[in-house]
């Protein structure tokens, strides 16, 4: 504590919206933070785990995360649960009843929506949850507000005895902006175990009474909304007025700097009087919001005339160009796009998922898939994923197909799911298969991490979010414990052995689990590991393209002309394959699939001798 010099410079930070939420929670004295990783929400918990005095954890799924946070709130401390939009579907069960119980310590639930589906399977508008669960929802527009609103959310939560929803979108969570540190403002609630059954035990007799309280609370929140500091009017040109919130507010300011704007910092419940006054004061009223006509529908229900979704797109992200076109009808004079090769993401060179999908494509199986890096197995050339719905859906989906087709499905359908996803919500479906006498084969891709969201540890890895070691859940023991007799572990890079195991297990008329166990190549330990380097002896390469069917970014195709082909003694050869040694991670799968022994370890090509 020696360096207590107040340097003004150090108080100005450049933070993402997610980091700002974490700082806001810290400044509010949050004690317990729980989350499941999901883009664009992941960095909130990661950032919180670095603050002293905050217990932060990765929960197995979002429902557990919210239940843990709610429990902490019952015990009288401030708590936060953060998740991506679809995560709130998983946590919806505790959410709706937490609205009845209310809180002791402030409870903030963050939902990070992804309107453009940058990294999501749908683009649901989670403002609807505020309406459905009857909870207040704050929506910041930029990082500085994300911190400010988080602080307000904790105060609001305790003052009104309610969980508070804080909604961001990708462009709030992942945008960096200037944020200032502030003094911490802690809760006055005392941490303790207090028995208040009429509040915490939602037996119907208690819940009915709490339901009445919920209605009263909503009414008080409606009154607050009229004067709440986050709902503001910026008067400008009154011929055109906008009602907007969150990121859309910034786009409006960008395109219509002169217009009058009613910015809603709290998007539910709405300040009806404020909206009426604003609507009367402007000639033309527009509602600008991404996704659903959420505000628009509520405003129209007040009997107020306005324009909204007939002009503004109801899907995808908004941006200044979209608004300009939608409202001003301006066509911009732009450069035409040029058709150039795409650069889509792909499994990394040496990715342990590749071998499994290569085998699944050879076997031409129908693959019920799941959410993770391995969803890329659906893309060419592997093209081996046939369904992908939501976290944990693969196993249930595959079992449903089995029950629909009966014996016809034996040996034709498999479920593929990652380690973290299996823990999230795959276990229960596997129990369904065992309990209801199924034969569906489940392949668990255990790459020792939650890779897609940026390598978070999970219960299978044996480490916590803070890097402390903990009990490592053994998948094989777990599967056996719930009654799966046939559990086998394979190394996916051993392609032929793995193929044999898959063939045997899919034929079995009883449940089976194959655990494909090999660490992700991007894990720090794997990056550091000295790896063998493979090369292709170009004289030996016949140009059969077998190795290219692995879809490995490190394998390149070099075209040759007829003269060159003749020189090689294979007149019909069109080219040969080459390994980009900068990219190669030495998994050796290409060596196995090459039937002409043209792929060898460096040093085995005879050149070095």
């Amino acid at each position: 504590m020696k360096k207590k010099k107040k340097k003004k410079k150090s108080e100005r930070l450049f933070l993402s919206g997610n980091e700002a939420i974490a700082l806001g929670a810290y400044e509010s004295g949050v004690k317990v933070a729980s989350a499941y990783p999901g883009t664009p929400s992941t960095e909130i918990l990661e950032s919180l785990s670095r603050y002293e005095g905050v217990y932060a954890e990765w929960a197995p799924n979002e429902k557990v995360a919210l239940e843990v946070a709610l429990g902490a709130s019952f015990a009288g401390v401030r708590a936060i649960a953060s998740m991506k939009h679809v995560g709130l579907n998983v946590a919806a069960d505790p959410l709706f009843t937490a609205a009845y119980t209310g809180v002791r310590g402030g409870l903030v639930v963050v939902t990070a929506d992804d309107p453009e589906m940058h990294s999501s399977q749908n683009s649901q508008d989670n403002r609807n949850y505020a309406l459905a669960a009857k909870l207040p929802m704050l929506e910041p527009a930029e990082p500085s507000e994300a911190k400010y609103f988080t602080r307000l959310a904790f105060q609001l939560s305790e003052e009104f005895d309610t969980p508070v929803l804080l909604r961001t979108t990708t462009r709030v969570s992942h945008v960096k902006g200037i944020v200032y540190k502030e003094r911490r403002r802690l809760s006055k609630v005392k941490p303790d175990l207090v028995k208040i059954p009429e509040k915490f035990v939602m037996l119907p007799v208690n819940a009915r009474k709490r339901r009445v309280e919920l209605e009263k609370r909503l009414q008080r929140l409606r009154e607050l909304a009229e004067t709440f500091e986050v709902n503001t009017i910026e008067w400008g040109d009154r011929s055109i007025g906008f009602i907007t919130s969150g990121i859309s507010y910034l786009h409006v300011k960008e395109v219509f700097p002169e217009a009058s704007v009613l910015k809603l910092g709290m998007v539910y419940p709405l300040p009806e009087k404020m909206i009426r006054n604003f609507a009367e004061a402007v000639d033309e009223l527009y509602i600008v919001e991404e996704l659903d006509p959420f505000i628009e529908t509520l405003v129209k229900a007040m009997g107020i005339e306005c324009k909204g979704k007939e002009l503004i797109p109801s899907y995808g992200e908004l941006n200044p160009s979209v608004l300009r076109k939608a409202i001003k009808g301006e066509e911009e004079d732009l450069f035409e796009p040029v058709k150039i090769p795409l650069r889509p993401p792909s499994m990394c060179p040496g990715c342990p998922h590749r071998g499994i999908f290569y085998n699944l494509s050879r076997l031409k199986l129908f693959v019920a898939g799941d959410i993770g890096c391995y969803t890329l197995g659906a893309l060419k050339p592997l093209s081996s994923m046939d369904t992908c719905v939501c976290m944990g859906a693969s196993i249930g989906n595959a079992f449903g197909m089995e029950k629909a087709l009966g014996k016809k499905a034996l040996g034709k359908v498999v479920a593929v799911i990652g380690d973290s996803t299996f823990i999230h919500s795959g276990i229960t479906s596997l129990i369904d298969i065992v309990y209801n006498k199924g034969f569906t084969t489940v392949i668990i891709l255990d790459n020792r991490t939650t890779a897609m969201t940026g390598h978070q540890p999970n219960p299978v890895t044996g480490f916590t979010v803070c890097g402390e070691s903990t009990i490592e859940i053994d998948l094989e023991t777990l599967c056996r414990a719930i009654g799966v007799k046939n559990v086998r572990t394979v190394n996916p890079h051993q392609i032929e052995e793995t193929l044999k195991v898959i063939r045997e297990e899919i034929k079995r008329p009883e449940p089976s689990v194959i655990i494909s166990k090999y660490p992700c190549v991007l894990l720090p330990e794997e990056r550091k590991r000295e790896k063998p380097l493979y090369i292709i002896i170009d004289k030996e390469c016949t140009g059969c393209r077998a190795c290219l069917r692995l879809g490995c970014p490190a394998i390149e195709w070099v075209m040759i002309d007829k003269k060159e082909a003749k020189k090689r003694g294979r007149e019909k050869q069109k080219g040969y394959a080459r390994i980009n040694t900068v990219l190669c991670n030495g998994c050796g799968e290409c060596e196995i699939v090459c039937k002409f022994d043209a792929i060898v370890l460096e040093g085995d090509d005879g050149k070095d001798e």
Partner: protein
Amino acid sequence: MERTNNILFCGVGGQGILLASEVTSHALIEAGYDVKKSEVHGMAQRGGAVEAFLRYGERVYSPLVGLGSVDIEVSFELLESLRYLPYLRKDATVVVNTQRISPATVATGLENYPEGILDELKSRGLKVYPVDAFSIAQELGEVRAVNMIMVGVLSRFLPVEADLFIDVIKQRVKKRFHEVNIEAFNRGREIIE
């Protein structure tokens, strides 16, 4: 009020684009500007196209750059400089690393790497500054320094003193990489008169 300025960083995953945009953001903040930077995380895989938008000015509202609004495009890879054409202003400046990194379809022989990319840019009236950043980085003995070379070139077009950039590099980069990164920055800066 001066209008908000827009910079687009683009290239391929693994080229250090996010650090380059981070250093530039901090230098602009130190110079007194409001800054917003927008990027998308999520797909952890390497090798995909990567972009980051940086906006600076007196007060920056939207973090997103509309079509036809980019003042300076900093492309870390040759082909990527063409991908964002509709985002560029008609009088935009394009700083482009002439290094080629083949997309998967090119590597596997399904498509060819387009030729004449610099001419494509110039023929549209854009101010094009080609930089062989990869060769310079090799000379410096650190291929990962490509990003600071690009920041060095970019710095010539920004209202920020070189010293501020160097201060920021010292704050943002591990100490044992200070020297090579600062040298890379200076080499980039020297390219433009």
